């Protein structure tokens, strides 16, 4: 029997949502201050409005909450799913008021795309966008990539954190407590921020000849988008704007760091480092990256897109790395990417679909699931080929010896299949609108796997239903379904329960 949620359930959810809104309101003070310093008074007003809405929602939520809130698993999942719906709506206020969007829904689309670290955009005239608004778009990617919930957990330690932590598509706890794990993740991020902004800023200033302030501006924004595998960029021509192999090199390092699980970061920092390459996930991602890179390079070579091997390797490598890490940067135009047919196109689409590591900022099916799926298929084949009573080893190494149990296999298969279904959903709706299969599938995978590479389907003139579908894909793909289904179940129980 379905149990209808009672007032206390709503009060608990309201309390935690309120806390998270207050954290995001505090984050909103950064672009507000930026707008004031840059004398961008139009955006200043809109940021003030956004902070006001978040602050009021936050205070009312906490005020409405119980004295001693007790968060259970279902509350936690509902809080996560609602957070990832409401924050993009409120976060869209400054974007909407900027006048850079054809429809109000488009501003919500960009906000969702930013928070889910996708990088698809419907923004018009990016090259004249206020710097504070550009900063906000990229900060959304940073908040989304790190996890808003994680930010709240870092500040408000308390009961129920574990539910919220796992609800935000993180499946490993690096340190004994969730709060210390959250603080470790932020520590790693701050170190990368200092390294990333310094390196990119220096390249921009010394090698590319930008003014120092502009070099740091580009460095900061590209850091946010690369480390959080988001893919927004300050200029409309993405990383192609910089015309610099050195800039692409540092950006690539940050994309790799972003696609690595924080467990792997922990192993790199505090050892044992030898175990890193024994991990199933590391081996899987290296194999799939090598495979998709090879496929793409062969495809580009076969169609003679590039005149030299060096050009082919540099451009092919960057595009595949960007796709596999779920970042979505590009160094070629959308028109050119759409022309890359055959193997090259397929290689990039597969790289997007596979995605980065679990518990990272990347999207897609994730390497550990791919590795476990392959392992269970191989085990099945072995079982068939070996004598009837032979035992097939089910162990694998992932930060220690683990056992591939039937429930784990089932869980991995279900999530992987849900991703495939999500990819097909967007492609099907695209096809219904007359978009060619190849482009419809590419764009759908890009949205679902939170990548952001586009062949031109995502455009302000796109049908509203397709736009809504991509938003659903970005939301569900980022949260890896569980929190989304929990919210749907909660609503169903509210309506139909007793």
């Amino acid at each position: 029997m379905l149990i209808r949620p009672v007032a206390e359930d709503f009060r608990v959810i309201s309390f935690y949502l309120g806390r998270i809104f207050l954290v995001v309101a505090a984050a909103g003070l950064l672009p507000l201050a930026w707008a004031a310093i840059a004398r961008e008074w139009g955006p200043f007003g809109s940021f003030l409005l956004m902070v006001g809405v978040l602050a009021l929602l936050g205070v009312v939520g906490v005020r409405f909450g119980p004295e001693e809130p007790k968060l259970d698993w279902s509350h936690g999942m509902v809080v996560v799913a609602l957070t990832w719906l409401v924050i993009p709506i409120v976060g869209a206020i400054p974007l909407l008021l900027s006048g850079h969007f054809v429809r109000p829904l488009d501003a919500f689309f960009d906000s969702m795309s930013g928070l889910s670290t996708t990088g698809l955009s419907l923004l018009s005239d990016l090259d004249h966008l206020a710097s504070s608004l550009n900063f906000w778009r990229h900060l959304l990617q940073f908040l989304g990539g790190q996890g808003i919930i994680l930010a709240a957990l870092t500040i408000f330690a308390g009961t129920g954190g574990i539910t919220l932590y796992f609800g935000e598509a993180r499946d490993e706890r690096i340190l004994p407590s969730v709060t210390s794990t959250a603080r470790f993740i932020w520590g790693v991020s701050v170190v990368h921020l200092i390294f990333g902004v310094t390196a990119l800023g220096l390249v921009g200033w010394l090698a590319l000849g930008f003014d120092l302030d502009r070099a740091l501006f580009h460095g900061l924004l590209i850091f946010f988008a690369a480390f959080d595998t988001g893919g927004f960029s300050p200029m409309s021509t993405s990383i192609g704007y910089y015309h610099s192999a050195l800039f692409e090199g540092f950006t690539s390092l940050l994309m790799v760091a972003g696609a690595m699980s924080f467990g792997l970061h922990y192993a790199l920092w505090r050892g044992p480092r030898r175990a890193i390459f024994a991990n199933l996930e590391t081996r899987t991602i290296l194999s799939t990256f090598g495979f998709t890179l090879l496929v793409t390079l062969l495809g580009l070579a076969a169609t003679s897109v590039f005149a030299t091997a060096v050009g082919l390797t540099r451009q092919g490598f960057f595009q595949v790395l960007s796709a596999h890490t779920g970042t979505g940067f590009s160094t070629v135009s959308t028109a050119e990417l759409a022309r890359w047919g055959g193997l090259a196109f397929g290689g990039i689409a597969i790289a997007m679909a596979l995605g980065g590591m679990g518990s990272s900022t990347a999207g897609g099916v994730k390497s550990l699931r791919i590795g476990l799926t392959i392992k269970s298929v191989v085990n099945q084949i072995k079982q068939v080929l070996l004598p009837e009573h032979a035992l097939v080893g089910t162990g694998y190494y992932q930060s220690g010896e683990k056992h591939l149990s039937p429930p784990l296999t089932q869980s991995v298969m279900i999530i992987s299949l849900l991703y495939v279904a999500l990819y097909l959903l967007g492609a099907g709706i695209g096809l219904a609108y007359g978009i060619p299969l190849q482009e419809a599938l590419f764009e759908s995978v890009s949205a679902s796997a939170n990548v952001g590479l586009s062949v031109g389907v995502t455009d302000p003139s796109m049908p509203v239903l397709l736009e809504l579908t991509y938003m659903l894909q970005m939301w569900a793909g980022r949260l890896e379904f569980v929190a989304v289904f929990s919210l749907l179940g909660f609503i169903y129980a509210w309506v139909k329960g007793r």
Partner: protein
Amino acid sequence: MRALLRFVFLAVLMLPAAPALAQEFAVSQLLAESPELSGREITIEGELVGDYGFRGDGWMWTQLNDDVYVDHPLRDGIAPAGGNIGVGVRIPSDLAEGLDHPGGYHHRGPVVRVTGIWRHHDPDRQGESYLDVESLAVIEAGRDLDEGVVWWAVAVGSGLILTAWAIWWMRPGRDGS
């Protein structure tokens, strides 16, 4: 009669040079036909945006946009009409000296007409594509863009923050009661 003969003679002399005359393209067309136009001398017109990257090697890199916002910036109040359409341009530093501030939020950049060689996947630059500019003419100087404060947003936002602050301080238990 002599003048006519001189004209015909000059016209005949110029004939071999005719195919080398730069053809004008829209940037969207350039991007669509990029491989076919590789190595050809072309002319494009548009706004310089972003940054002027003087790299100290005799070249300045920037981006040239050829879209609806060149003539009608959003800040002039027109409706948004999609993304930017731009390409990278490499301009000899001496041609780039003295250009107005590149386009951005506070400025509409200078509108220029540039002629140069289209480098599609240039082997010398590991596959980058850009226009290698040989000549540049400023069609329209850059200008500042006006900005208005959204007063209602300031007022409502301030009101909401004050309300939130008041509710926070009125919550029960703050004074131990």
